[in-house]
């Protein structure tokens, strides 16, 4: 019995070491993953006007998603150099191309989204109330995934065009 399990463990070790060499499916921190998603969303969205000057990724307040986005400094999006901006008021958000909101309170969330309605700002949020409040892209945490839903009507009303690649991967499109 013991011999068999020893053999089994060797086989098992082999089974697990081989794929290690072949490149395992890797994992990521959730905020890193959200930042990477936001970067791709920016590439797959068309704004009514191309950015004059810098392409602004805005983060409401302080959030680890900002750390991920700051790695993009030096790159370009929509042919404009990336800038990562922290915004603390909705007035300051008018110059954003992409805005990440993480308010907990539906009321604050609704206030910012209403103030930016019909402005060409791609509003992305990870708050569970945000889909109801018509944020354009809303992250949902699964136990082992980050997924997202799209409010297509809200994006269109703001003059943004979201590519079919994004729509295809969204869990839900409204």
């Amino acid at each position, binding site marked *: *019995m013991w011999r*068999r*399990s*020893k053999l*089994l*463990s060797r086989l*098992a*070790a082999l*089974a*697990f*070491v*081989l*794929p*290690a060499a*072949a*490149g*395992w*499916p*890797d*994992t*990521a*921190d*959730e905020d*890193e*993953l959200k*930042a*990477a*998603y936001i*970067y*791709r969303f920016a590439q*797959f969205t068309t704004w009514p006007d191309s950015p004059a000057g810098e392409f602004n990724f805005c983060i409401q307040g302080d959030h680890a998603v900002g750390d*991920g986005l700051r*790695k993009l400094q030096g790159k370009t999006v929509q042919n404009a150099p990336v800038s990562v901006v922290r915004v603390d008021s909705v007035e300051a958000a008018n110059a954003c191309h992409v805005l990440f909101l993480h308010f*907990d*309170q*539906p*009321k604050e969330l*609704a206030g910012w989204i*209403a103030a930016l309605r019909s402005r060409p700002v791609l509003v992305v949020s*990870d708050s*569970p*109330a945000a*889909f*109801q*409040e*018509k944020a354009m892209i809303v992250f*949902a*945490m*699964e*136990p*082992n*995934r*980050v997924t997202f839903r799209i409010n297509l009507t809200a994006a269109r009303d703001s003059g943004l065009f979201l590519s079919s*690649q*994004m729509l295809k*991967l969204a*869990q*839900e*499109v*409204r």
Partner: protein
Amino acid sequence: MRERGIFLQARLIAGCWPLIAALAGSLPPAIAGDVMDRSLEELAEMGLSAPPANVEVSTAAKFQQSAARAPTPVYVVTADDIRTFGYRTLGDILRALPGLYVTDDRRYQYLGIRGFGLPGDYNTRVLILLDGERVNEAIFDNALVGTVFPVDIDLIERVEYVPGPGSAIYGSNAFFGVINVITKRGHALSGVELSGEYGSFDTYKARASFGRRFDNGADLLLSATRYDRGGAKRPYYRDWGVPAGDEDSVLGLDYEVVESAFAKWSYGPFTLQGGHLDRVTGLPPFVFDGRAFPDREGKIENRRTFLTARYDDKVAPDWGLQLRFGYNRDGYFGTFPYYGEFFAPGVIDRVVGKEEVEADWWGGEIRLTNTSFDRHRLTMGAEWQNTFRARTQVYFKDGPTLLDFPYRYSRYGFYLQDEFRPLDSLTLLAEARYDTGPFGDSTNPRLGLIWHPRDATTIKLLYGTAFRAPSLFENLTTAFLFGQPATAIDVENTGLRPEEIETFQLGLEHYLTPATRLTAALYRYRMEGLLGQGISVDDRGNVDTYFVNIGEVTGQGLEAEAETRFGGGVRANLSYSHQHSQDEQGRRPPNSPEHMLKFRLSAPFWSERWRLGLEALYLSERDTWLNRTTPDQLVGNLTISGEMSENVGVSFGLYNIGDAQYADPVNPIAGADTIEQDGFNVRFKLNVGF
């Protein structure tokens, strides 16, 4: 009969443990490639390096929220987990969770929860929802977790389990917990999918599905399934008076055939879904005078039909509206051959008894949410159920009718909820619901305090009451025995009151390391007016059962789970539950394991396209109705699943790998109060997409 000690079982399962050791030793460091360089498709497939605290859940408080803000720990099982661990029924999913266990009497699978799983009861102390709508039917109030569950397990997107009292928003039956089964959208399938399965006991399953999301966002899912289990090679009813050498006569008597269909359409805020399930299962032989009479006419059939429309949207600034309206039909049809000296001494005759129980009901819910007060989220809701036809018939084939009772009733519930966040680190939840119906009224509050003192720690305090109104079946049985006029059945003429439970719970979610999370709940409950069965024997010796509110039951327990993630997508999960309940005389209820230990491991295997799921479930000994004890048990399951190509998925499952011989306590039938469970068995599954 081969007897295997629990220790040997452990050794056999431990045969797989070196896998873990090997794993831990050979784990590669997380691959250095920057996440920012990944394509959208790769990001969507990427796992998380730590168990997230803020998984989105919707069952704990009836709105979308982060699990960290829910008043109790919430356990979520996803379609990925169902595939990885080769789960075959809802029961398989639930038995892997802390505090839950499943009992199988080879007619149905029943759920035990927090030490409570009385054999002979029909899961009436847990509320099961399908996409938010009550599955518990209108006559027995039952919702079972085996193949009789109305939707194919392959169509489940996720299952949320919320332990603790839920009546303050859900009403009756949300007694020990609420389970919500959320179905997939058509988008999850993207085209036609054909699935075939073959397993031990001559089991086949075939499913054809179609799913698609259209350019305007509308989503459609259509699916049909047929499942056929021929039955065990070795008869499980051997102890029931089947003469040696005559075992073949009971072969395949526990067959099972299930046919089901499901459709779901959604567009914007609207969802329309419906389905049907028909399940037939054979019966063990009737035993008379120590002798078994296998009879292939004996069977039980269950049918369920449902159709539901939902609406969910923001209707004005600060106002959200949710509507649900649905129709359900549930039927139970039993054919029971009886053998005995009915007409003349010394002559064994056969009569066939029939039970037909069928109910139709409409139901709905309206819910308004208001967020206009800063830091408050107010919800008010009303729910109703109108059972416009409930018919119970008991008769003998070609013989007299014993009971033919049509009935109708309605029940209503009204609830209020306020979620208040005075501080970013503090959430208070206050809820209350009033329920009224012919079988008793009840008001139930629930109060929750969720405190987030540090980044790594959340503390959750919960107090709540819950109730279960006696079912129509329990009322009917009781009213008839006492010879009450049958025009109205209510508290007045049965004397039955709702069961009530009061629960205190302390929950904790704490990150021991960034990748290791500990979730725990410590609870204490007191039940009053537990509905128990009484037995009455009349002067001619006829035995009848009825229901009566018996005394008080108290219980306490602990559910703790540790989940950790290693590099390379390896996840491990260990849970322990301790539960102890007792009546006023200090007796433990039957079928109540004191300890449960569960382990799950999910890891990539061989290549990144293959995955291994290993599960070990330990239950300590359980008492039976006849004051015997079933030994403790350890069951291990191993599943390897993967993709042969983009459109072809396979899964190979080995269940009960140690071939543990164990039995579940059941309602006593023919002097047997336990039923042996499946030994080692396998399943092979193939999915092809087009």
